[in-house]
């Protein structure tokens, strides 16, 4: 007669590998499961490490600019803006008003484009597969503007040190007004599709909750922090590039779950369209580059006709400008959170240290906290609602 003991509960270790349709890139998550419940979720990153910071430190300030496009590739103009603002702070350059207004307009359109991609992929993960097609259809019109401005669909490098690379195109006004009108109506369509949908609400309400104190302790920023009720937006707290002249509202959430973050991002899209409209209505006239000889490249029309502009152009492209010894930090509100650039100059023409403070990297560190005790399918929802871009996490 043998008696068998009941089996003790054991945990399974499951690997959500780097190649997975829902991890938005090459993210690997090591899950420890007890049945369907997650006990511990540990993200393992580094599968897209490119050494962008070291590459930027080996080039002149101007030539390091295109590498910033590739950090967060869904919002390329925001990265350009952050880097240029940091270098302008280091060299103490003041830009004309038209540049500030144009930069704000483009940054807000970038925010709309990034949130559209987030909406498409997040809804695809949760089951609403047609949202991906709608989101990418709207994104095509914004990418059309990028192509008109900078010549390239995604990595434009349009925002340069001291201004813009070329003047705004002549039909910029008409195109942006068209986009604002179209996307405003489409956002109403997305709301009817998703906001009251019982399946969507069941999958996102009460999922991936984080409290306000925990959010501050984990150094979170962006919609992840504002979903828990903390009112911190870099555009309102420390305004840059003329944001103090625009009227907009920063939406806040209450519960800190995935549904609140969804509503916050939808509302941010609407507010961004408002800001873009104000920027277009009040766009001032003037030069599109600052006039700082020796540091900022002269405009191309002058280079072709004036001698001293040609000489400055040649000197700046081959030799660069010498930066003072010291460090600056400039933070902007990118669609993912607080994106910061910490640049240290050391008296030569190359930076000593370019540090990108990546919002997705710091936000992803809270994934174990967001997913403890939840079901396996809620981990997918948590990863989607943090809104990560792997190019920024690994750099």
């Amino acid at each position: 007669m043998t008696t068998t003991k009941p089996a003790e509960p054991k945990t399974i270790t499951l690997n959500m590998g780097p190649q997975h349709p829902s991890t938005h890139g090459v993210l690997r998550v090591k899950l420890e499961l007890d049945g369907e419940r997650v006990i511990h979720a540990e993200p393992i990153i580094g599968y897209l490490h490119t050494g962008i910071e070291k590459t930027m430190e080996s080039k002149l300030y101007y030539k390091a600019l295109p590498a910033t496009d590739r950090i967060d590739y869904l919002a390329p103009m925001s990265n350009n803006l952050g880097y240029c603002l940091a270098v302008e702070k280091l060299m103490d350059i003041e830009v004309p008003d038209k540049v500030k207004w144009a930069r704000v307009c483009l940054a807000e359109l970038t925010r709309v484009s990034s949130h559209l991609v987030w909406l498409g992929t997040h809804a695809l993960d949760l089951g609403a597969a047609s949202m991906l097609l709608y989101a990418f259809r709207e994104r095509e019109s914004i990418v059309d503007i990028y192509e008109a401005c900078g010549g390239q669909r995604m990595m434009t490098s349009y925002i340069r040190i001291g201004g813009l690379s070329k003047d705004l195109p002549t039909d910029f006004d008409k195109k942006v007004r068209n986009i604002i009108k179209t996307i405003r109506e489409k956002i109403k369509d997305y709301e009817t599709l998703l906001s009251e949908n019982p399946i969507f609400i069941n999958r996102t309400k009460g999922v991936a909750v984080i409290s306000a104190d925990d959010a501050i302790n984990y150094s979170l920023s962006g919609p992840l922090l504002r979903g828990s009720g903390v009112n911190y937006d870099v555009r309102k707290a420390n305004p840059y590039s003329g944001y103090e002249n625009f009227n907009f509202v920063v939406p806040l959430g209450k519960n800190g779950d995935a549904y609140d973050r969804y509503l916050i991002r939808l509302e941010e899209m609407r507010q961004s369209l408002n800001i873009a409209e104000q920027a277009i209505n009040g766009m001032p006239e003037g030069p599109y580059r600052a006039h700082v000889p020796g540091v900022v490249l002269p405009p191309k029309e002058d280079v072709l006709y004036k001698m001293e502009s040609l000489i400055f152009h040649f000197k700046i492209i081959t030799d660069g400008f010498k930066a003072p010894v010291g460090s600056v930090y400039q933070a902007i509100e990118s669609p993912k959170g607080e994106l910061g650039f910490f640049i240290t100059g050391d008296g030569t023409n190359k930076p000593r240290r370019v540090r990108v403070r990546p919002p997705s990297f710091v936000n992803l560190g809270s994934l174990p906290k967001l997913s403890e005790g939840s079901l396996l399918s809620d981990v997918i929802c948590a990863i989607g609602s943090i809104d990560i871009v792997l190019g920024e996490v690994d750099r």
Partner: protein
Amino acid sequence: MKDELTSFLNERFAGGILAVEEFRSQISYRIKPEALFLICETLQKDGQFAVKYLADITCVDWLGHEREKEGRFEVVYNLYSYRYKYRFFLNVRLNPDRPKVASLTPIWKGANWLEREVFDLFGIIFEGHPNLTKIVTPDELEGHPLRKDFPLTWEQPHFSWNKDDPPEVIK
């Protein structure tokens, strides 16, 4: 805000603060490595200053520059206060023979991954960190890539493909 914070820090930690630097309206306090944990704990818990947000931890390698004589590695802590909307920095200078400093993980949980990254890329050891391992670089890579004596690349591009000599295919 800047003067009150400076006088508060100077009273409480008289030996800890070595210098106050200001560059482009940005204040950084150079402090001793031993005093770092106590200063951060006091600033976070204090009622008046309430610095609750640790934005960033990074490091600068001053190899080959005249600033190296005060310490080759400069670890920079980026702190922000929500109430006063004020940002300031704490600098710690370390030498390469003893690159150790206390970890801030008990105070701010967000410091966990930031310190792991600084360890991975520069080799600074944070004492008291729960899991100080590599995070971004591949496991086979030895050394710390962002130091100035680590080369950027080991190979240069060469252009050798032509029709008479097609490339070898890897099987």
